[in-house]
């Protein structure tokens, strides 16, 4: 069973230190994040961008397809990730910096992801 949409919970001041990997100009600041419950549809482990595609149910129960940008494989590897850390069907709770255009694409924040009920550190943002 898919978890319900949590929505815009956050005005979390995460205090992230950006290394400005490939530009984060699409996204809102670290002070404006949202947290969603979702189901992974694909985990793309590619250089220089790793990203995760996932489905979120909105407040009306409609499924919205999201993309969440992450750091590079080398950075994630240092945080303990591999190409199989996320799998299709995993249930996740993830915190994102939404983009300024209002489309369902975000930058995963430094907040821990919860994967199938277990917290998982994701290391630095881009």
């Amino acid at each position, binding site marked *: 069973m898919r978890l319900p949409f949590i929505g815009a919970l956050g005005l979390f001041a995460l205090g992230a230190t950006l*290394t*400005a*990997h*490939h*530009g984060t*100009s*699409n*996204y809102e600041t670290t002070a404006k994040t949202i947290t969603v419950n979702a189901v992974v549809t694909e985990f*793309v482990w*590619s*250089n*220089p*961008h790793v*990203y995760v*595609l996932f489905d979120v149910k909105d407040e009306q129960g409609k499924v919205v397809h999201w*993309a969440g*940008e992450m750091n*590079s*494989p*080398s*950075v994630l590897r*240092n945080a303990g990730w591999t190409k199989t850390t996320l799998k299709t069907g995993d249930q996740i709770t993830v915190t994102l910096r939404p*983009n*300024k*255009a*209002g*489309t*369902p*694409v*975000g930058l995963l924040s430094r907040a821990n992801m919860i994967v199938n009920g277990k917290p998982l550190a994701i290391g*630095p943002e881009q």
Partner: protein
Amino acid sequence: MSRTTLGSLLAAGLLAAALLWTPASRAQAQGKAKGKGKADAAPAVSVPHDPHDLAGVWRRSGGVLTMSATPPPFTAWGKAKFDLTRPVYGPRAVQGGFGNDPMSTCDPLGMPRNLFLEVSIYNFEIVHASDNAKRVYQFFEWAHSYRVIWTDGRALPKDPDPRWMGYSVGAWEGDTFVVRSLGFDERTWLDHFGNPVSDDMTLEERYRRLDRDTLELKMVITAPKAYTQPWVSETKTLRLAPPNVEQEEIFCVPTEEQRFNRQVRDPGSGITGKQ
């Protein structure tokens, strides 16, 4: 408190500090502080080294991701070229999908942009070769690219065809390795802010090893077509990675970048339906 008691307390405190501050804990603390695990585990120590041997993996340490904080004034040509760029970094940053940084299509970064390493996590490796002609290879982790610096005494070519990395020769001036380059392809950006490269640009790099683990780099570019005066860099500092560090295979793969643009970068900028 008696002198004996004070001495005993002091001795106990020093012993406790020594037990807690083991080499392992020191290495761990340094690794955490720099955030690159094993790559930064070895502490900097003053040990003998050959100042004319630059071999090793070097990682940038601080500084701006360009020559210096302020470029020299542009020429009219330089200003026009600069105005055509739409970077995704810095004060002129546009949303990613609207940018035109050559990096976002996996075009070669060229020189000197590769030296800015884009991101502090990437590095370059220097290898000295002398099997045939003396030369130095500089392998850049980003995009799995390299250049050759000829050290066999040859002169720079006159009016060479433009190349992404230019054409480079190097020589020692005392303990400073001086690299002079020309013949650059002006399709590159000098940095991720969109500062221009012109085909008349010359680049001088001066590498000096301050100790085994620290490499200093100073640069000057002269490009009269783009800038009204030479651009002198800030002093860059690079740190030597431990010998067990391997460069990763970090290609920029065009098909993967295209997919990323389609699934993340463009929709994240509000662009939809782009082929």
